[in-house]
């Protein structure tokens, strides 16, 4: 019985069927997201576990694809891990070569990415829509910080596009400044694990400029980056060591 379960978990056939199931669930999900915007539009406004607890259980029909997608992801991660455990033992008992090891480094990096995302989905924090006029203050969720927008600079192209926009901000705890910087597209302000992101800007009804910020914390961020880079490097090395073979 245990042997049969192990063979199932390490099997390439399992991987193929689960992969196909993942593709079907993802395709269904992409359609469902457009069909139920009221359900899925705030999916990125909070961490996945929080969103799923609120919407996934309340509307199991339209979110069924997500149950399938998460189940398939878990099975793919288990399959990759079991495959690696199964193969590493004979590899280390025999002739250890980089070429034999690298596919399993790729597997472990994939596992690392999945687990890091899981950590972010469970223990992260999302504080969206922090709207603040220039010179004004806004509390940053439950962090105990207050964000001040010191200055908003917007450079418009003649065609009417914003060419560049940036916001000089200060973070306070009580009345003490704890972080200060200029936030613009692709350049957030990081402080104690949180990133403050400039999302959009505009004029208030009374004419003063305002900006909208998100503050996000992802405890898996560094691990995701490290595992993604490891995955990429190991994957490239697989190609290099395979040479002209079919890898």
């Amino acid at each position, binding site marked *: 019985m245990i042997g049969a379960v192990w063979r199932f978990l390490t*099997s*390439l*056939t399992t*991987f*193929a069927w689960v*992969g*196909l199931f*993942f*593709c079907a669930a*993802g*395709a269904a*999900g*992409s*359609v469902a*997201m*457009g069909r139920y*915007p009221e359900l*899925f539009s705030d*999916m*990125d406004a909070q961490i996945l576990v929080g969103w799923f607890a609120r919407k996934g259980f309340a509307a199991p029909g339209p979110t069924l694809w997500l149950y399938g*997608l998460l189940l398939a992801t878990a099975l*793919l991660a288990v399959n990759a891990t079991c495959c690696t455990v199964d193969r590493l033992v004979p590899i280390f008992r025999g002739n250890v070569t980089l070429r034999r090891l690298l596919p399993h480094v790729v597997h472990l990096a994939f596992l690392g990415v999945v687990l890091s*995302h899981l950590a*972010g989905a469970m223990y992260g924090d*999302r504080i969206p829509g922090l709207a603040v006029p220039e010179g004004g203050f806004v509390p940053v969720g439950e962090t105990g910080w207050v964000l001040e927008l010191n200055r908003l600079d917007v450079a418009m*192209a003649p*065609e009417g*596009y*914003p*060419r*560049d*926009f940036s916001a000089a901000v200060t973070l306070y705890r009580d009345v003490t400044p704890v972080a200060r910087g200029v936030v*613009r*597209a*692709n*350049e*957030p302000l990081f402080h104690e694990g949180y*990133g403050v*992101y400039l999302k959009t800007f505009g004029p208030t009804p009374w004419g003063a400029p305002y900006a909208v910020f*998100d*503050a*996000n914390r*992802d405890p898996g*961020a560094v691990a*995701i*980056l490290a595992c*993604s*880079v490891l*995955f*990429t490097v190991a*994957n*490239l090395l*697989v*190609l290099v060591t395979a040479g002209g073979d*079919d*890898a």
Partner: protein
Amino acid sequence: MVGAHLVLFWLSLVAYGAEAGLQLGGIRPASPRRSALFGGLLLHALFLGVRWVLSGHAPMAGLFESLTVFSFCTALSAFFLCGTEGTMSAWMPLSVLVALPQAGAALLDKRLTPLYPALDTPWFATHVGLSFLGYGLFAAGLALSWTYLRHGGDEVYRAAGRSALYGFSAFSAGMVCGGIWAFYAWGSYWIWTPKEIWSVVLWVYYAALTHLKFLPAGRGWPGWGRRLEMQATAAGYFVMLATFLGVSLLLRSSHSF
């Protein structure tokens, strides 16, 4: 200069069309470098280089630039994967796959547009460039697998396998670059949009395909063998097309092309 650089685009389209026409007429070039496709590729590279300089950003934004870069990467893959005598038989379908997106791009607005600030980062070029390199290799996979299914051939079969593996690797690297960019731009490596979901669908599809090569024929999957593998490689092109064009044109997604 702004209008003149489009001459290079039209010339490359003519060269790609000539190659496709010659191939369909049964006229094969003596070698890859003595082909209309090679001439088209050089003109196309020059066009993209000039456009990059003129616009100040990688020419990969919007549908016109996406289609023409897709065509360029598909042409590039012909020389990367189908450069030997044995694999050049795949040039007939591949030259059509090169010409079609370029012809589609010819119908679209070609004006230079400024880049939205969030796209103004080196991650934009690396993410989109590597993704399209993967798409181009997947297109070569369709041409090679189609050729294998019609005429057979060990060399063509191996080249088709490499198209999936190299395409998967390039696409994976592109996804990693996109994730890093998304983290700096929006505070998350992952955003729930149809485009992201389809990107992972495409990634899992090719991950499975590259693994199934190691499945012994007839075991586990009845009927699994080279022909089914080649059919799956060909089908991968359509999964890629759904990811690239289907999501952006048919579904609502904030992440376009």
